[in-house]
């Protein structure tokens, strides 16, 4: 039953979306809609059958489906209007949402929107791996759906390009299912994901890891028959003479996640060039009033627990916006400085305590994180794959000189 008196409409029912919808309800919104394009709630959680979720939020070591189930239950108990297999076709700057499902196409005007579309995977085509276009090239996440939800293996002899967590998780998964993972190929000199996965996914199964290598060719015309790998130099260019072929029938790609922001783009939401996602303030609000965003569509997160927290923030503020509560002014812009790839949020009030999150560009040992000259924190080690949280308390913020409009967040090597 679609009503036209919607307080908050959430697009995407992964961990960010579910958290936003639940929190919006708990913050007092009467009518909350949760729109999902797939056949069930949970987003990618249903296919992430491995554990490691919920360590922070629930203090338990849960699998993706278990983590998701907690929120699905809350959604079902909260009288949130759930629309499955429903695609959002259009979004306008003034919050008109056009939905499409088997019941038809309809345009709604909710008071607030939370964008929680997640991200998509970088493809073979966009990184221009030479070769023909054989069957057997999959992104790791799509392969994960095939193996864990649909019940099919992409192949029997696999090479994985990219050592991010998704790639390593799939290396283990496919090995356990009886396939042979012949190599994980990584262009950088270090593994892209968590150490825990390096040990429990690659080392445990003696899967060969080729660091500072990349795939320079796919063999096979109609179906993958193999790949050619080569060592790369400091500029990540293949070194002639180091080429070697690996026979395989499948190439899995774990070469990056891209926040999915077609709707944000349509609505004229400002997107950050580094994150690829909406620029947000500490309320998780974008430049369009009443349009909030959370989760992987804002920036590619590391832990689902943090995605949930972001979603809750967005949901709460979306509810407040829907109820007409005035929004505080955002006076301070946060900029990424030395060795910081990006900071979330990009705008804060500067007047109340706020948690900021950041990702470094390069791994480093013995560092000082600095926020302007109002706060420092020393850390033994930082890695791009693990996001860092900094709490700016009111005490910190009070140190700002009058007239400050910008704080630079940097990560410097200690003395």
């Amino acid at each position: 039953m679609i009503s036209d008196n919607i307080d908050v409409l959430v697009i995407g029912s992964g961990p960010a979306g579910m958290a936003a919808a639940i929190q919006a309800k708990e913050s007092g919104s009467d009518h909350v809609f949760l729109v999902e394009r797939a056949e069930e709630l949970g987003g990618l959680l249903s296919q992430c059958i491995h554990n490691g979720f919920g360590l922070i939020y629930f203090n338990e070591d849960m699998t993706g489906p278990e983590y998701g189930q907690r929120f699905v239950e809350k959604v079902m108990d909260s009288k949130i209007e759930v629309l499955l297999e429903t695609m959002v076709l259009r979004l306008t700057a003034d919050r008109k949402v056009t939905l499409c499902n088997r019941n038809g196409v309809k345009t709604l005007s909710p008071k607030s929107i939370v964008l929680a579309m997640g991200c998509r995977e970088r493809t073979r085509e966009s990184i221009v791996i030479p070769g023909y276009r054989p069957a057997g090239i999959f992104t790791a996440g799509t392969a994960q759906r095939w193996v864990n939800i649909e019940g099919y293996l992409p192949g029997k002899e696999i090479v994985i390009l990219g050592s991010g967590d998704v790639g390593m998780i799939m290396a283990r998964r496919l090995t356990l299912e009886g396939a042979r993972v012949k190599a994980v190929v990584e262009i950088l000199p270090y593994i892209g994901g968590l150490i825990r996965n390096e040990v429990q996914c690659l080392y445990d199964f003696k899967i060969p890891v080729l660091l500072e290598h990349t795939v320079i060719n796919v063999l096979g015309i109609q179906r993958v028959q193999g790949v050619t790998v080569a060592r790369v130099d400091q500029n990540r260019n293949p070194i002639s003479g180091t080429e070697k072929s690996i026979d395989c029938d499948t190439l899995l790609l774990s070469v990056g996640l891209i926040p999915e922001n077609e709707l944000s783009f349509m609505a004229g939401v400002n997107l950050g060039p580094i994150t690829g996602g909406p620029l947000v303030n500490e309320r998780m609000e974008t430049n369009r009033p009443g349009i909030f965003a959370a989760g992987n569509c804002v920036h590619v997160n590391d832990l689902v627990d943090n995605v949930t927290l972001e979603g809750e923030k967005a949901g709460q503020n979306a509810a407040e916006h829907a109820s007409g509560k005035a929004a505080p002014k955002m006076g301070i812009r946060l900029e990424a400085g030395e060795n910081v790839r990006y900071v979330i949020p990009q705008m804060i009030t500067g007047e109340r305590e706020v948690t900021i999150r950041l990702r470094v560009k390069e791994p480093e040992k013995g560092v000082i994180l600095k926020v302007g000259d109002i706060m420092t924190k020393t850390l033994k080690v930082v890695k791009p794959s693990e996001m860092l949280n900094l709490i700016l308390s009111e005490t910190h913020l009070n140190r700002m000189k009058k007239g400050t409009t910008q704080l630079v967040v940097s990560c410097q090597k200690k003395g």
Partner: protein
Amino acid sequence: MVKNLNEITCIICPLACCISVAVDDEGRLIEVANFQCKEGKEYAVAEYRAPMRVLTTTVIVGKSRHALVPVRTNRVILREKLFDCMQHLARIKVEPPLMVGDVIVRNILNTGSDIITTSELLD
């Protein structure tokens, strides 16, 4: 006395210390070196002695619009037993309705761990 050195990568925190565990020929612990915290030391010894893991996988579902149900061990089991468990579970089929936490196999292969579902499957 012969010292057999074994390197264990610690996964407790991002420092990822490479902790060395030295044992004699009878397997008695001689020395643990290169750790930065108590938890790391304990992890390295336990990991050397008997690496334990959580197994997460799927089981085929019949009479359902779903093909699979995700499952896990509810305790850590010996790493050595992972493949045997996978073989065992490959031969099992379950049917809906299933709730989160339903026991599919009790004490699988005498590991002390059950295999439980991690997802609800009503149809």
